[in-house]
């Protein structure tokens, strides 16, 4: 049977936007537009040529990530190192985390999948190869895939994510294939710390262990980074925050990668649920709390741009970050699809997005100007239920994640997200959903929603989190600032007293794919 896919054939941007609006995704808009978090609001501190390259890249620009989608194709199953936070044996279809895929693809299947997805989802602008092993441990498959995609879909940006061990050997090829973004996972620059994270590496036909392994890995990572940035290829650094192992050390990593020209640092919390069977998971190594993660990100923020919207997705994820449509594009389905790659419609969508982004920024700036003259040191967090486009447009009970904004008189800034979905395995299924949500956003003073039922409203209020419905379907930052202004006024009039909130939990495990 041939499955017909309707491409976005109308060049009318409004119509294209309508189609996209019907399509559920995560979303957020950027921060204050001038803070050091260049990845957040807009250009920020980024040089113009870098901003031009990243502004439509969902994995690099927080502001872009609710407008533009990425996909990963799992053509690279082999890996050349072992990490204590990774277990290649575990693959649950409902699992969304790095190193996990449900099916491997050949380069030909992958290229067909990319074109099929890009025809159905016009916001798909980025193809990444991130495993489930290491792309550069599978060079033939990785580069063949890039070559095939570049032939048919020249507007799609290519990127790859590597552990860096084989990177120095492939920098010239990366440059030749026009891959302008590379992510390197660097968890340490001190081999003694590395030995606690990497049990072994396979290099030069030999397995190395311990400090020697970590030393070789670190040298290759930093040399590869230097070689890439010298060729003008943008480098983002991913680091896994492992409390008690490398948490404090990541500040040093941040300095080392910044000095070598990395433009963005993404510090992610360790995922270590015991049921994943990783060394860390089985040893009871915990991940960081929300407050610990944010404190480290804030500490590094002064040094360089920090990324906070990473959802640690699967190596075969498809769609906007925070959602996963990979189930719609299994090999069986794509091989039967008739594909019409419409470059014009894709450009029309992208132009419409530009207009919407401008409207949102203007709204935020207008609201901020109303705060001018207010003086307050108060900084607080609020949670937002959204399904995209920078709007408060999700029902409280339907939210699978909440976006977290930090608000102050300087503006509203996206600082992270909290997942509240239920988990497929590990005994979390019986948990009371509302309790889960409260634990996840316990550090917030308010939660902005499109709608909320009476019961959860009362429970949230009892937990000290104000449910806010009055800004339904309005822009997030503008609403947050407006609410903040009223909050300050209430403190001034003595109506309320400000109380600091506690810490929150970062959930372990994978996002459930929407049925």
């Amino acid at each position: 049977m041939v499955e017909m896919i309707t491409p976005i054939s109308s060049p009318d941007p409004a119509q294209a936007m309508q189609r996209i609006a019907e399509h559920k995704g995560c979303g957020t808009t950027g921060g204050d537009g001038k803070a050091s978090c260049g990845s957040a609001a807009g250009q920020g501190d980024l040089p113009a040529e870098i901003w031009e390259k990243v502004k439509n890249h969902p994995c690099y620009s927080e502001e872009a990530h609710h407008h533009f989608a990425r996909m990963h194709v799992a053509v690279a199953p082999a890996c050349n190192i072992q990490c204590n936070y990774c277990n290649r044996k575990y693959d649950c279809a409902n699992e969304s985390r790095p190193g996990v895929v449900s099916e491997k693809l050949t380069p030909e299947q992958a290229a067909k999948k990319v074109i099929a997805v890009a025809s159905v989802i016009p916001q798909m602008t980025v193809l990444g190869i991130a495993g489930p092993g290491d792309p550069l441990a599978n060079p033939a498959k990785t580069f063949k895939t890039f070559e095939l995609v570049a032939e048919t879909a020249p507007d799609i940006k290519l990127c790859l994510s590597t552990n860096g061990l084989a990177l120095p050997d492939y920098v010239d090829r990366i440059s030749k294939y026009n891959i302008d973004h590379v992510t390197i996972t660097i968890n340490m620059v001190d081999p003694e710390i590395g030995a606690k994270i990497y049990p072994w590496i396979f290099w030069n036909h030999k397995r190395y262990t311990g400090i020697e392994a970590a030393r070789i890995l670190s040298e290759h990572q930093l040399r590869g980074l230097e070689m890439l940035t010298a060729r003008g290829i943008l480098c983002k650094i991913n680091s896994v925050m492992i409390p008690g192992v490398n948490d404090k050390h990541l500040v040093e990593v941040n300095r080392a990668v910044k000095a070598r020209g990395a433009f963005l640092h993404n510090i992610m919390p360790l995922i270590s649920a015991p049921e994943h069977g990783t060394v860390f998971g089985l040893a009871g190594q915990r991940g960081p709390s929300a407050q610990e993660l944010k404190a480290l990100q804030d500490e590094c923020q002064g040094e360089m741009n920090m990324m906070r919207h990473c959802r640690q997705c699967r190596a075969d994820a498809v769609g906007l970050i925070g959602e996963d449509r990979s189930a719609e594009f299994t090999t069986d389905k794509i091989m039967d699809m008739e594909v019409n790659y419409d470059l014009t419609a894709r450009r029309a969508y992208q132009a419409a997005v530009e207009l919407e982004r401008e409207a949102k920024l203007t709204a935020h700036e207008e609201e901020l100007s109303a705060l001018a003259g207010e003086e307050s040191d108060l900084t607080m967090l609020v949670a937002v239920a959204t399904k995209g486009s920078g709007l408060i447009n999700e029902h409280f009970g339907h939210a699978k994640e909440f976006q977290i904004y930090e608000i102050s008189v300087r503006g509203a800034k996206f600082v992270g997200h909290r997942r509240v979905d239920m988990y497929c395995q590990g005994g979390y299924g019986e948990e009371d959903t509302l309790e889960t949500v409260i634990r996840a956003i316990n550090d917030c003073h308010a939660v902005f929603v499109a709608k909320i039922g009476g019961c959860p409203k009362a429970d949230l209020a009892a937990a000290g989190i104000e449910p806010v419905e009055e800004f339904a379907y309005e822009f997030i930052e503008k609403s947050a600032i407006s609410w903040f202004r009223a909050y300050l006024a209430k403190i001034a009039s003595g109506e309320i007293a400000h109380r600091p909130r506690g810490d929150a939990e970062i959930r372990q495990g994978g996002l459930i794919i929407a049925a």
Partner: protein
Amino acid sequence: MAYKIIAAQCTGCSACEAECPNKAIAEIEGMFVINPEKCTECVGHYDVAQCVSVCPVDDTCVIDGAPLRYRPGA
């Protein structure tokens, strides 16, 4: 003798296939299999068996006692 892959342990990652100096490893119906006729246990190529060294799961590539031990020049 030759090496063999314990199928129940194998993740199908294909890392061994690329490293084998004898091209003795192939994917057959989704499973990776070592051809004992071609396996030399990497003798003459490397000090250690490449499949064992690169495999992400311990005790998955193991010596199979059934075929005769490989002898160079035999």
